[in-house]
């Protein structure tokens, strides 16, 4: 094999290996990219993970949005977990306060993490929480119960086609994971 060919072979191999390594990195880059896309497009029902600030909107009295609350627990979570009210009717722009009730049924201290999801997904970006128990891990001692607060408002820009928003929380048992701080 002539030297010239050896040289151009090495160059091409270098480019191709760089391409493969780059695509390996791209696979991991898809992770933050996916989160950004979901957040921006409000798909997948993901809501924001941190508190939003409430600026006094003009409350749109002409529209009423039904908000439904759902609470689920993962199978290995020894808690009782349910919303205080299952459904409420709010005006867009109105700051609303409610809470969920949680009770640790076991004899062990347990740490839970609630993950919210809004349906329909297109409405997720308009459902804003100024305070939510889902921003932090929740620890309940054995047999302890607690009221977990949620303060939210619906953005008045919510598309007219949406009249009902369902907020669903799934509570995960993360006691064994040894997490410190919030999931953020």
């Amino acid at each position: 094999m002539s030297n010239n060919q050896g040289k151009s072979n090495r160059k091409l191999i270098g480019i191709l290996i760089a391409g493969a390594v780059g695509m390996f990195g791209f696979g991991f880059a898809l992770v933050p990219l996916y989160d950004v896309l979901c957040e921006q497009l409000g798909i997948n029902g993901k809501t924001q993970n941190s508190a939003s600030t409430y600026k006094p909107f003009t409350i749109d009295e002409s529209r009423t949005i039904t908000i439904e609350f759902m609470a689920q627990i993962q199978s290995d979570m020894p808690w009782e977990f349910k919303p205080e009210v299952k459904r409420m009717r709010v005006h867009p722009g109105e700051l609303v306060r409610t809470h969920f009730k949680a009770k640790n049924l076991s004899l062990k201290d347990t740490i839970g993490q609630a993950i919210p999801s809004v349906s329909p997904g297109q409405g997720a970006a308009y459902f804003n929480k100024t305070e939510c128990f889902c921003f932090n891990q929740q620890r309940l001692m054995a047999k302890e119960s607690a009221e977990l607060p949620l303060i939210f408002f619906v953005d008045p820009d919510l598309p007219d086609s949406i009249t009902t928003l369902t907020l669903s929380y799934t509570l995960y048992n993360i006691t064994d994971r040894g997490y410190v701080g919030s999931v953020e």
Partner: protein
Amino acid sequence: MNTLTREAEPNMEIGQVEAASDHQDEHQQHPSGIKRWLFTTNHKDIGTLYLWFSFIMFLTGGAMAMVIRAELFQPGLQLIEPNFFNQMTTIHGLIMVFGAVMPAFTGLANWLIPMMIGAPDMALPRMNNWSFWILPFAFTILLSSLFMEGGGPNFGWTFYAPLSTTYSPDSTALFVFSIHIMGISSIMGAINVIVTIVNMRAPGMTWMKLPLFVWTWLITAFLLIAVMPVLAGVVTMVLTDKYFGTSFFDAAGGGDPVMFQHIFWFFGHPEVYIMILPSFGIISAIVPTFSRKRLFGYASMVYATSSIAILSFLVWAHHMFTTGMPVFAELFFMYCTMLIAVPTGVKVFNWIATMWRGSLTFETPMLFAIAFIILFTIGGFSGIMLAITPADFQYHDTYFVVAHFHYVLVTGAIFSIMAAAYYWLPKWTGNMYDERLGKIHFWCSVISVNVLFFPMHFLGLAGMPRRIPDYAVQFADVNQIVSIGGFAFGLSQFIFLALVIKCIRGGEKAAAKPWEGAEGLEWTLPSPAPYHSFTTPPEIK
């Protein structure tokens, strides 16, 4: 030929002859026995190793399919436990994709690309050796996990999280490492193919003179380099999620299990075309030979292949219509998917136009090629049905999907590999294969494969879910027919094995060009092809 290449040629020839004689000295006393195969850097030896390995894997994965079909012969649980059934479906899929189809294509590439472009060997012979010899280790690791406590992978070949993370058996690490090794092997093979095609073409072998098999493999190699690393990435995330406490796919830790499907299918859909583009190249070689006409629309074939490859990156989410995507995304992926039917249609049209008014003869390679065109098109049509978003909600995860991808992979990819084996066996072994046995193999295969997969369409439309060991009684009759077809198809492949062994051991001597309609540089070499292909570059007409 223009003056430029004529001037360049003598120089090249001297360089190549020197290089070739160096090589011959090196190989004059090439080791015999097992060492010949372990240390070989010869493209034909490595091609042979790949092809035999792929056939062994084909039988291994096939044996698992037989277990699956035996269990599904009747409703209820007869032979195996559900967990073992899941391991069978998982490993059957993994072996057939990564162990049978992909190595077979790499083997064909090794054997044929240097001969087709007028090169003495592959560009990177030592890497070639390595990329083959790590494969048996990968599959040993994968198969040995079956014997571990808790069993082997049981989460489907698509290893969706959380099945492969939260709920997977302890042997998942072995699965992950075996996928890593397979990925490294494929990437090295792809690099070798690209470097060979770009740098080692004989003088005068311009891009638009390349045989289509070479073109399709070049494009496949780029797809491999683009997506195999993504697969490596996603299995690594599964590994760290399961063993090191990360939360890529775990909602409790801020991850998202649906993201797994996005990353997986970003790899997975181009992977589908990795397994079919070389087939297009094979069929484009065989159909003109036995039609005794030039291939219709060569340039459009090249452009169609390239557009399929590009589109394959824009359609991955059609595997996940039911995950709750926004309507806009569902429509986008639906239309992009349907767009792929256009270049594919161009190809099918060109093959038929090649046959049109040709002097057709129906030797075994041609029979397999025609069966490919018809049956692959059926698989393509069911693919279009699945691409229709609202209809997919009905078909998703049913036997209709199973029927669809077995039509494109078995009667598509595998039939094309069979066709290629029959077509080039005389060149490889120097002997003609037994035509009568070949025809028996073809008719047994083509009838049984349709008995096997066609009724699955109806099972799926009637609502039978895939990947279940037990089913409602109303599906029993059709499942029995399917299982009988499955056993018959499995047994038919031993005819092929017998034929290949018979052909290697002897038979009517094959001429350099045993098919009078064949075109291409590989037919200018004697049969069997000499150990080193083109020690002097051939003249390209």
